């Protein structure tokens, strides 16, 4: 079966005064219909840039993106707009991503207007149905974003993407701006909607347990590259890349008795404008050898798992 989304050797080099910043530097992955693909990594690893390139909100420097059988980067402006109906985004900050001067209903109906779907008089009904679907009340359509809590606003943001019935939704840190007790509500909603409508997610987040809980497969990024891709159940239980291992060990677990072997990484993430030679992680890897410091390992796939390491764990 052809995947819904196939990203091949995707690159984004930003120009800066001090020379190019290698934000994303050769990323390849696929997402099947109805699948949830998680992207994790620390700030500056390029996960958000990947998400935005998939929607062509940022133009890639090079590489290929195939979505739903079409070459996304070959589409003209009208073609891209038509395609965006099928691929939508839920943003991190529901305070900033809704138009504060439009009512909740108008924010949601905006999607229909932009894509010229249905008659205006039908919109009201469709918006009300959407509000119910995401756990709000039909009467909420006339209220304004500032009258809602953070969690409710994120529900409006989800309704706005959902009303187009997309095949893929990119969620960039959908719960990290929300209170802990509200995060679980939104995660449950995202899962329920996927079961109901069958779309695929790309879930971008730095909260590793959130991504593990939600995803079918997970890609771990570091300095603009994928270090490891594996099924969600395996990647944290048995990481094969030393970076994944360190990342997993660094997550605080809410259990004081939990046996943990903490791997403290030395130093900071190198700058993406001056990546180290060889393996990008070699400057902080406790297993690094001379080979790692000179030759960059390729992302090799074996038994459904991919890892970019000369000496996988």
């Amino acid at each position, binding site marked *: 079966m052809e995947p819904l989304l196939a990203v091949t050797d995707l690159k984004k080099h930003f120009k800066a005064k001090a020379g190019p910043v290698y934000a994303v530097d050769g990323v390849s992955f696929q997402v099947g219909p109805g699948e949830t693909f998680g992207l994790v990594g*620390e700030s500056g690893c390029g996960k958000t840039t990947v998400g935005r390139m998939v929607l062509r909100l940022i133009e890639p420097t090079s590489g290929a993106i195939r979505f739903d059988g079409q070459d996304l980067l070959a589409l003209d402006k009208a073609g891209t707009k038509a395609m965006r109906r099928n691929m939508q985004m839920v943003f991190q900050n529901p305070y900033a991503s809704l138009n504060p001067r439009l009512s909740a209903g108008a924010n949601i109906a905006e999607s229909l207007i932009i894509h010229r779907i249905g008659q205006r008089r039908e919109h009201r009904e469709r918006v009300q149905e959407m509000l119910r679907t995401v756990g709000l009340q039909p009467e909420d359509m006339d209220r304004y974003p500032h009258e809602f809590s953070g969690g409710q606003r994120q529900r409006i943001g989800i309704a706005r993407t959902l009303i187009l019935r997309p095949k893929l939704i990119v969620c960039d840190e959908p719960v990290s701006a929300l209170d802990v*007790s509200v995060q679980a*509500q939104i995660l449950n909603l995202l899962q329920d909607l996927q079961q109901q409508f069958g779309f695929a997610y790309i879930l971008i987040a*730095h909260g590793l347990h959130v991504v593990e809980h939600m995803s079918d497969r997970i890609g771990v990024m570091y300095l603009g590259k994928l270090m490891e891709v594996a099924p969600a159940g395996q990647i944290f239980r048995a990481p094969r890349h030393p970076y994944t291992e360190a990342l997993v060990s660094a997550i605080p677990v809410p259990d004081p008795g939990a046996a943990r072997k903490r791997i403290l990484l030395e130093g900071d993430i190198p700058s993406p404008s001056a990546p180290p030679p060889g393996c990008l992680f070699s400057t902080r890897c406790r297993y690094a050898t001379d080979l790692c410091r000179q030759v960059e390992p390729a992302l090799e796939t074996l038994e459904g798992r991919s890892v970019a390491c000369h000496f996988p764990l």
Partner: protein
Amino acid sequence: MARLLEIINLKTQFLSSGKTITAVDNVSLHVDPGEILCVVGESGCGKSVTALSVMRLLPPDAARYAGGRILFEGEDLLRKSEREMRHIRGNAIAMVYQEPMSAINPVFTVGGQIVEAILAHKPVSRRQAVEKAVRLLGLVGIPDPAGRMGAYPHELSGGMCQRAMIAMALCCEPRLLIADEPTTALDVTIQAQILELIRRLNRELGMAILFITHDLGVVAELADRVVVMYAGKVVEQAKAADLFARPAHPYTRGLLACIPRPGTAGRLPAIDGMVPHPGRLPQGCRFHNRCPHVMDRCRLEEPPLVDRDGHSSACFLAED
């Protein structure tokens, strides 16, 4: 053992467009010498306002200490003059903030700011202050401390900047360090480094720490004792191991249950509803409209915080 810090029935209010909002309502908690106390809660629970009340750093025109006492080594900080507080801040009690990049002055070097802090509090020469600043930068794990003295904040990463802020907080050997979400803005691998540093400072210098966080994972890593706050009130207080093994308050239980953990799948047991706005608190128990065990009396009466063998909770269910 004498308490280092003892907050008794603190009530901190804000005046907002003619209305009085009680952000911290009858909060009592204490920190013993050498102990790490974590205060955990969601936005608006009053955890940061409690910390800023101890430092007396709330804007005097908007905030009011409407009741209670804050005893530090037996003396009430709420009765101190601004001049006396200036001597206590940075000296006996120091604070580290959430966003290192916005808490540090961007136009002065890191070393210069630490030297200035030392000179403000200690009768030492500039040369001695510089030597001490270098030693402190080394203590908090900044590589090449002498070389980094002349660095500006923008030349440091977020993690390094937070280390520099901690070095500055340590410059007068405070007896109490208040840390308000010091790792929330940092990546997990850097967070792990900073938590390790805080544990080491507590162990090696015997410094007591009041650590404020929303992350129960961080609490489990760090705390000797935990205070759980909700909507301006303390709802539970216990030794860390006890709190995680036998959470007594339905809010604490709900919070622990709804976090995704390794191996969880399917629906999460979410807490219904949302945190109430501090200006529109429900009558009775403030958690009652989200509580799965709500009883009639919870809607009318506010349950008091009752202690049972060092584990206290504010819930009628815990009574029998």
